[in-house]
């Protein structure tokens, strides 16, 4: 019987200083499971970028990570403003982050491109005004 471990996180959009915590938790769990370091790195970067995006643009959201024998699936969803033009958002350097965030070193327009680069599969569903739903997979 194949077991699936589910990790769930409520990503707080109010407190920017705590952004990135879920990614750290995921990394710890993946280490315990004995996942190879290169995979852990890919998953935690993708997770981190997604988490930061939800905090910057959507005032927070939810994250779920499913780990099974052959795959790690990261599912992020929020009720933020949504993405008007996904193709444009996927381009490196394209950013709609406010200046205050940029001054912290975020908002360089690498979030979504990095999520795609570090995962094997990525699916974005978004509706302006309703929210964004992202599913990423890394195969083991």
């Amino acid at each position: 019987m194949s077991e699936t471990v589910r990790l769930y996180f409520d990503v707080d959009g109010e407190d920017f200083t705590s952004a990135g915590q879920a990614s750290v938790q995921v990394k710890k769990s993946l280490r315990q499971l004995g996942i190879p370091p290169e995979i852990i790195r890919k998953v935690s970067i993708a997770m981190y970028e997604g988490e930061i995006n939800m905090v910057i643009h959507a005032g927070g959201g939810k994250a779920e990570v499913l780990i099974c024998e052959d795959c790690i699936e990261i599912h992020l969803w929020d009720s933020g403003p949504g993405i008007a033009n996904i193709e444009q958002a996927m381009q490196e350097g394209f950013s709609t982050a406010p200046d205050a965030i940029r001054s912290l070193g975020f908002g360089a327009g690498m979030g979504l491109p990095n999520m795609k680069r570090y995962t094997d599969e990525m699916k974005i569903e978004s509706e302006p005004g309703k929210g964004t739903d992202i599913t990423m997979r890394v195969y083991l």
Partner: protein
Amino acid sequence: MNTYEHSVSLDISHCTGCTTCLKHCPTEAIRIRNGHAEINPNRCIDCGVCIRNCPNKAKKATYSKLDRVLKQYKWKVALPAPTLYGQFEGLEDVDYVLQGLLDIGFDDVVEVAQAAELVSAYTRIYLKTEGIVKPVISSACPVVLRLISLRYPTLKEHIMQLLPPMEIAAQLARQKTRREHPELKEEDICICFISPCPAKVSYVRNGFGDYKSQVDEVVSISDVYFSLLNVMRREKAPLPISHSGMIGISWATSGGESSAIFNDKYLAADGIENVNRVLDQLENGNISSLEFIELNACPGGCVGGAMAVENPFVAKARLQTLRRYLPVSQNFLEGENRDYIPGGYLFEKLPTYRPIQRLSDNFGESLRMMSDIQKLRAELPGIDCGACGAPNCRAFAEDVIRGNADREGCVVQQQRKLEEQLSQRQNGEEI
């Protein structure tokens, strides 16, 4: 399987089985079993946090006894860590300390601060080497090296492959002894490091990767301090032995090593929790455009070591005074050495990753275990009281599923059960 020799140990006779060390251990290496603490050698990084926190002085650093070292060898060379200089009230000149070392029985002194200045010079060269992974992480703190090899395998390539000042000093001391005293046999010579922390003892015993330490014995600053107090009261002027400057002395405190790379793209963090935070963030790939990272496990840097005597911040203040009128550096690379690091100062192989946290070697089994841990954790009270002997409820759940603890060990859960039984019985009697 554990072949690593530790330098932090427990004196069971002093341990009351309280939960202080349990709560402070940064790698969750301690459990309370059978009324006293137990240290898991596979997880322990010899950081000394438990030594610093134990209210009963049951946690001890193991190191060589000064008396024994002084008696055993014919030719003893002292390698004082710069932290030693910060231990003395009103010290005006480092030479008083160095003269004191000769007076208590050492035959020669080579300052680690001197070697540190060379390491700083070599670091500036190292940072210009093509193909190195940046940011480069300092190799000076042995706790950080072990922490990275156990918990941050992806960061191994960032570690600077340049030996720490203690080792360079040991090599210089041995060369000097052989040159000046060719009559001495190898077993007559003792290169003795005077250490602020137990982690250096472990480094010397175990080496790092393929590298074997050149230090023969490690004694504690606290032991040497008390011996020195007796001889340093003398009124005679010391011999002018010291040959280090501001840079070398600054290595004793956090930020000192970094400031000597003459480049503002550095980060210096101290205290094991802060070190963990920096490494986590670095692993996530979001510390950009840095050249160098200096990490010290102890608060304040080496002055905060568990084998030092003085409060680290007081020691730091004294070192500031001590270095005020010193030249920036007194150790320079000359001639053809100016843009090349001697091979003997580099170490080749990084230690292999030992996955301490892994639940099982079989991935399917790991998944099942993690799922069981999650289930058990949800049943536990979540108050992290430590009464079961594990540092928190999650660690307890892990111990149970790994088969290292008894499910009945949760005191709070047991009490709830008892209360339920009691109330059932009372209800039964009423009917």
